């Protein structure tokens, strides 16, 4: 550092003292090799977008009403249910779509589209979205509300409004201001004319896993698993129940029982033409989900960004994607670490699970007719196109004693025949990757999987099936729930902000790499890949 030799006189002495102080500040703040913080304008580059980030998709014949099928999609994972001032909104400028392909051409025959709008009664008086206790959805104390329209869009272009201006259940704001959240949740369940119902609002995240299992496969060991890293968090849920025939080809569930389902979430973009034309851009698909774990376990490194923007009818043309399905990385990793031999040859069994559905008709190795659209009587096999989606046979009745391992354990109502809330998709995926679907035998050495076997809390017995959201229970460092004092918003700004930084910097926020993993869908889009 240079000395303040240019200074002299009294002013100089004072200044010199100031300079010494400043220099010390620099040593402490900026380090000896510090550069200036940037003087040009910088904006965030790596920005997540949880409101449109689809974390999970479920599809199952309703356990208490077997004439109907229920679809559940979750967005905006990792909501801290600490009763704080956060409202986790649905995006207003976005399309939340459930797509159904019943004829196997990898294009939607029906799209169920949800679009949201805000009703903000806060004016500028407050940042808070409640003003006192909220007893009902139309309670005047509920200052910020969201509403949605649901439209069915058919392949021929026909559009039918199924729900108009229905209200979203608000984010839970703690037991003090929302003492009976179940009442709010139930009020938010809307009947669809002609049969069916919808719930849109928060729920406890039904996904359960020790997400570290995948990190550990990349060089660690499996002795540390057994902790549900999702426990305690809420998500934004759409649950929709419809008569089964509404989604079947030609509305005939007997001839055409198999459907494919995927979600697609799109946000409206902008067009740059300063001072000139309309700035509004097209809707850009930013999140896509069919089978669970596909982008994590299957997508090749360079494709993870692209996958979220792909349409299923493009899948078969993307060679890297298909190659990775039939030649996956995971079994090789397991072999290198655990000496469990990876199945040999092209993995056509995985192609069946992920890309075609399980059928004898396409000469795959899994000798069963389970859930491929190609088994629908009215499907033209020549128009069938392999694509990644969740496939469900609507004619398999609900199993009164469901097995968490689904089809692999002989319970054909479960994943990969659709996906129920309690299906253990992580353990199933590992077993399937190890060839259990083709061999019909579970790999004993991996039977325990991640040692997290059920959602917590358990799913409910009736619609919307997802459990009530946690209400005012913060998630602590162990990934479990604990009661923590609630900070109203005014206190947050009063807290010593630097102390906050310290507390977080020094704390182990969660066990293992789960946050990362869970965020991976976003990060994949940010970075392209997480694997080596």
């Amino acid at each position, binding site marked *: 550092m*240079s000395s303040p030799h240019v200074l002299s006189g009294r*002013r100089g002495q004072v*200044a010199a003292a100031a*300079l010494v102080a400043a*220099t*010390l500040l*620099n040593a*402490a*703040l900026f*380090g000896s090799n*510090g*550069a*200036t*913080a940037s003087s*040009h304008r*910088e904006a*965030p*580059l790596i*920005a*997540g977008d949880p409101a449109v980030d689809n974390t999970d998709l479920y599809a199952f014949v309703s356990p208490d009403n077997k004439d109907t099928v229920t679809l559940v999609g979750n967005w905006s994972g990792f909501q*801290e249910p600490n009763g704080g001032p956060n409202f986790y909104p649905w*995006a*207003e400028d976005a399309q939340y779509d459930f797509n159904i392909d019943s004829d196997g051409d990898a294009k939607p025959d029906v799209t169920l589209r949800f679009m949201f709008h805000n009703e903000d009664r806060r004016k*500028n008086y407050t*940042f808070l979205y409640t003003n006192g206790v909220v007893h009902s959805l139309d309670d005047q104390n509920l200052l910020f509300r969201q509403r949605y329209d649901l439209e069915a869009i058919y392949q021929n272009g026909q559009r039918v409004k199924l729900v108009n201006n229905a209200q979203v259940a608000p984010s839970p704001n703690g037991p003090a201001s929302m003492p009976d959240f179940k009442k709010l949740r139930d009020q938010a369940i809307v009947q669809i004319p002609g049969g069916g119902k919808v719930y849109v609002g928060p729920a406890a995240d039904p996904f359960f896993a020790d997400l570290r299992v995948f*990190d550990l496969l*990349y*060089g660690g060991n499996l002795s540390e698993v057994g902790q549900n890293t999702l426990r305690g968090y809420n998500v934004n849920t759409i649950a929709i129940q419809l008569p089964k025939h509404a989604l079947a080809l030609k509305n005939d569930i007997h001839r055409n029982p198999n459907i494919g389902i995927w979600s697609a979430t799109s*946000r409206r973009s*902008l*067009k*740059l033409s*300063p*001072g000139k034309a309309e*700035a509004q851009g097209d809707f*850009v698909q*930013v999140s896509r989900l069919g089978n669970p774990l596909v982008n994590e376990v299957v997508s090749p490194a*360079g*494709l993870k*960004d692209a996958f979220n923007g792909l349409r299923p009818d493009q899948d078969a043309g993307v060679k890297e994607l298909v190659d990775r399905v039939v030649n996956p990385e995971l079994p090789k990793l397991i072999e290198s670490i655990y000496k469990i031999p990876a199945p040999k040859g092209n993995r056509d069994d995985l192609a069946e699970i992920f890309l075609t559905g399980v059928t004898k008709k396409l000469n795959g190795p899994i000798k069963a007719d389970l859930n491929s659209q190609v088994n629908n009587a009215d499907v033209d096999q020549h128009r069938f196109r392999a694509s990644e989606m969740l496939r469900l046979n609507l004619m398999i009745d609900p199993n009164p004693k469901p097995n968490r391992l689904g089809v692999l354990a002989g319970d054909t109502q479960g994943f990969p025949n659709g996906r129920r809330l309690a299906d253990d998709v992580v353990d199933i995926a590992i077993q399937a990757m190890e060839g259990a679907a083709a061999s019909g035998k579970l790999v004993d050495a991996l039977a325990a999987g991640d040692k997290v076997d059920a959602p917590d809390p358990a799913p409910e017995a009736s619609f919307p099936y997802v459990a009530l959201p946690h209400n005012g229970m913060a998630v602590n*460092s162990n990934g479990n729930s604990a009661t923590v*004092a609630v*900070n109203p918003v005014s206190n*947050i700004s009063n807290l010593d902000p*630097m*102390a*906050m930084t310290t507390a*977080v*910097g*020094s*704390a182990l*926020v969660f*066990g293992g*790499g789960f*946050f*990362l993993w869970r965020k991976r869908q976003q990060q994949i889009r*940010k*970075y*392209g890949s997480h694997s*080596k």
Partner: protein
Amino acid sequence: MKYQVRQAVAVGLLATAALAYLAASGPADSRAGGAQPEPVPVVAQQNEMHRAVHQLQQRLHGLPEDKASWAKLGASYVELARVTADPTYYAKAEGALKNAGDTGLAAVGMGTLANARHDFHAARDWAGKAIAALPASAEAYGVLADALTQLGDDAGAQDAVQKMLDLKPNTASFARASYHFELHGDVDRARDAMTRALTAASTPEEIAFCHYRLGELAFDHNRLDEAAQHYEQGLAARGDDMALTQGKAKVAAARGDVPVALDTYRKLVNRAPLPQYLQEYAELLEANGKAEEAAREYDVLSEQQRLMESQGASDDLAAALVAADRGDAMQALRRAEAEWSRRQSVFVADAMAWALHVNGRDAEALAYSDRANALGWQNATFSYHRGMILAALGRVAEAQEALVQALRLNANFSPLQSLKAGRKLAELRGGR
């Protein structure tokens, strides 16, 4: 870990200041790994970025060969440097990126770091590598957009931002769209785009950023109440945000609440003696007749700049403007020319114009002022500079027009320079 964990030095010296916390918390990695899990306070969600970094560190403790995580950690450190104004994160970023291999992700991280360090040519090259490896990566195009904007390649920057918007309409791309609109004088669209960025924002840091920019768009166009509201709303999301604190201080000064403004600035520069804050503080002191205190802050400012320069981290653009404002004509021109030799963007064109003006070379200055205004950016400082240049050239009517424009855009664009603009305007009118 291969990168050095920085010791929390000087904690004792600074214990009386809140700075001790920052010194201890800056290297969040010092606690990664071995420590026992501790309960996280409910405010944890206020620091999403620290949390993400911490998770990456955790993962890398177990999987030090995971190149992708090193790349993400490097990029995250650069973002942390931005939100904390703590450039020690740049060295951390560099350390992390050294382990990240030769991948598209690593190139994104290196490009982000190069941009943050004003090495825009290198950033552009890194962006090219990143795009070649990850053609669907919006972040790779973001690195490119940032580099081209600063290099003055307007058409290229527009294409890169549009590509980003087409790949991933989110806070990052909307924010860049907003900047692009603003640079072209389309203030309404700039505000709309930033509002969309805010709508998509999820972390407190992103929310704070968007509110700050919305506040700035309002402040820069004489809408003080709207600006104040955005700064306040941003602070509700992120109470320790320095940019928003600066915004509040500016609003207080503009409303004539000088004691509050000075107090806020004093706290701000104690916490983060960034050149920009020091300069604004000094100008505010000077504008309010506190010449001696102002001189002290100017001295700290020069020492800051000297310190940074001695470490090869000079910022010629900022230095040129400070020197010009302080009347150091030679230094101003030297620094402005140094920056102009590297890049010819509107920002540097304005600095060249202003530096030439204080050297009495106003005819040349005007040519640079034309270039500075070529995109149509409605920038009060640019207009003020132009007005002073025109006045020196004796083009009285045009000078008045430019000075009126400056004050009409933002009567408070600088505590000191706006006074000078007003005085010059009165002088020109009086002389008519």
